[in-house]
């Protein structure tokens, strides 16, 4: 085991996969000399050259489309979109081209395309630089959606994405970049998609925490443990495919469910998890399914307003207390 930051884990994975396979390239705005606006790509351009680490114009549609076309004829492009907020600028390529290319071709196309996107509010970045788009494309069949919450998963899921044959939206939470974590030494460490992990066992309630919410969830669980409430924290790791079984099994055990994500509450990814459990696991529920998420307003600039809009540890704690006290 090594210890490194979430950001380093992503960098190392890219570096290793680029060393391993000449068809792996990195394409995005300022991924070269600048080293990536979030510093993730670092010195990759000096290691692999401007040919394989391409700075692009500010042309998200062309960037994503080029990644798709390149993937169709043999490259394994990694695309970097510096803020998830900009995904709609490339909306058509993501929704109508990348997601559907394989199906429309009758299952012939192979699209080994990894789209790295940052997500979450970095703090007072306001409405166009703070969004969490994890759910925006879940209603569009054909894409896979990864939401790594630890350094090890950032590495393992990214490697799976790069070596796989399907397009992946890989969401990197800005506030996790600096978080340290243990990472396996195995140079082939890959995390399968569709396998959730229980981060903490508990009998009283199930807390599904998505991406950047994991640290907050663990903190809330700590606090609640102090009050005798044992929380089971489940990290889905990928939203598409979704590991229903692990979530349902936990709910069968705890009979209570809270879903926490930073995306807005209305039709955020938690809605699908809640709806799935309400359909397939309602029998084991002893209370309402709660969602702790951002309120349904654009992200404001003011720190005071932003804090009110975004989900906080206390929001999880309160929801848990209420739920445990609830009687159907």
């Amino acid at each position, binding site marked *: 085991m090594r210890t490194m930051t979430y950001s380093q884990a992503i960098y190392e994975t890219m570096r290793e996969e680029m060393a391993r396979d000449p068809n792996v390239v990195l394409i995005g705005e300022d991924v070269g000399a600048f080293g990536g606006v979030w510093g993730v790509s670092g010195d990759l351009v000096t290691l692999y050259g401007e040919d394989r680490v391409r700075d*692009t114009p500010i042309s998200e549609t062309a960037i994503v*489309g080029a990644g*798709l*076309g390149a993937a169709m004829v043999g490259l394994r*492009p990694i695309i970097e979109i510096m803020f998830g907020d900009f995904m709609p600028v490339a909306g*058509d390529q993501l929704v109508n081209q990348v997601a559907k290319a394989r199906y429309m*071709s009758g299952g012939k196309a192979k699209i080994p395309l990894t789209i790295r996107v940052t997500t979450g509010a970095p703090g007072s970045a306001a409405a166009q630089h703070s969004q969490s788009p994890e759910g925006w494309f879940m209603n569009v069949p054909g894409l896979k959606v990864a939401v790594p919450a630890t350094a090890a998963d950032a590495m393992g899921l990214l490697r799976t994405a790069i070596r*796989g044959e399907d397009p992946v939206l890989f969401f990197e939470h800005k506030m996790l970049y600096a978080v340290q974590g243990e990472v396996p030494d195995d140079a082939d460490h890959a995390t399968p*998609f569709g396998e959730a992990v229980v981060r903490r066992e508990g009998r009283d309630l199930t807390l599904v925490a998505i991406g950047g919410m994991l640290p907050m969830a663990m903190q809330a669980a700590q606090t609640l443990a102090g009050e005798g409430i044992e929380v089971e924290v489940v990290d889905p790791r990928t939203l598409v*495919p979704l590991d229903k079984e692990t979530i349902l099994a936990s709910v069968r055990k705890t009979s209570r469910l809270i879903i926490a994500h930073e995306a807005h509450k209305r039709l955020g990814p938690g809605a699908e998890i809640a709806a799935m459990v309400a359909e397939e696991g309602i029998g084991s529920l002893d209370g309402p399914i709660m969602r702790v998420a951002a309120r349904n307003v654009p992200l404001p600039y003011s720190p005071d307003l932003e804090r009110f809009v975004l989900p906080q540890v206390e929001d999880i704690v309160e929801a848990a207390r209420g739920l445990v006290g609830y009687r159907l």
Partner: protein
Amino acid sequence: MSETPYTTEMLLDLYHQMALVREFELRAINERRAGLIPGFIHSCVGQEATAVGACAALASDDVITSTHRGHGHLIAKGGEPRYMMAELAARTTGYCGGKGGSLHMTDFSLGILGANGIVAGGIPIATGAALAFQQKREPRVALAFFGDGATNEGAFHEALNLAGLWKLPAIFFCENNLYGEGTPQDKQAAVTDLAVRAEGYAMPGVTVDGNDVLAVYEATKTAADRARRGDGPTLIVAKTYRQRGHYEGDPMVYRSRAEMDDWKQHDPVPDFRVRLLAEFGVSESEITGVEGRVQAALDEAVAFAAASPKPEPETALAGVYADTHDGLVF
């Protein structure tokens, strides 16, 4: 009979493909009326010379992206009428097993990266293929077909800028048929000469008579050679005309009969036939021989499609992912 660089074989092959495209469209239209084909058709009748001339200048391992009006492009790039007709008929034997239809026919083995239902949607994709060829040092070219209307989409601009900036081995082939659906080209673009836009992307902009298959061939050949030399992309604007409606059933209230009749006088297929006889000394019997083969091929294609099985409903779930997650509905 003029001196010519073209062999009779090549000339007849061009004519064969143009006739095949024309006949394919007419048959498809009939079979749609007859009920064999469930979906919409945007026919390219009148635009055979652009598709055939352009693809004739490409190598078999070069690639194209096509459009909603793409049957001609596909046939010209080697697509087989039987598999195309089967796809239109939504059969398992079709190019996409019935999942794609007219708008999405694809055959990677032929370098056909897909027709597209989104105007300008294929342009960035072809650009990406060209990027891969440059990266892998492969002497291959990617050609994007698109219409005049597509040149007003942002995707056109971003892709051409990227290709011009990186000197990618790409050809941007605009079929200017004067209309985008019911709106004339001069009500869509601020400029009528679309080739001038090439300057903004540091690439040559060439305008050519899109109803002259040899002119299209030459222009595309020059662009392909240029791309293979590493000198970068070219924008080709081929002036042509859509003889039928935007889609089959289009009332065409937006244009005059006179205009349409006028253009029928410059019909690329019969025009080329006349030239073959008059200018290139091809014999009538050679031509009728080709025309006979075209009819036979399409009789066979329609029969093949009609005889092919329809997909089993449950197979709709397959083809989303390349791995074990395929077929799961989560």
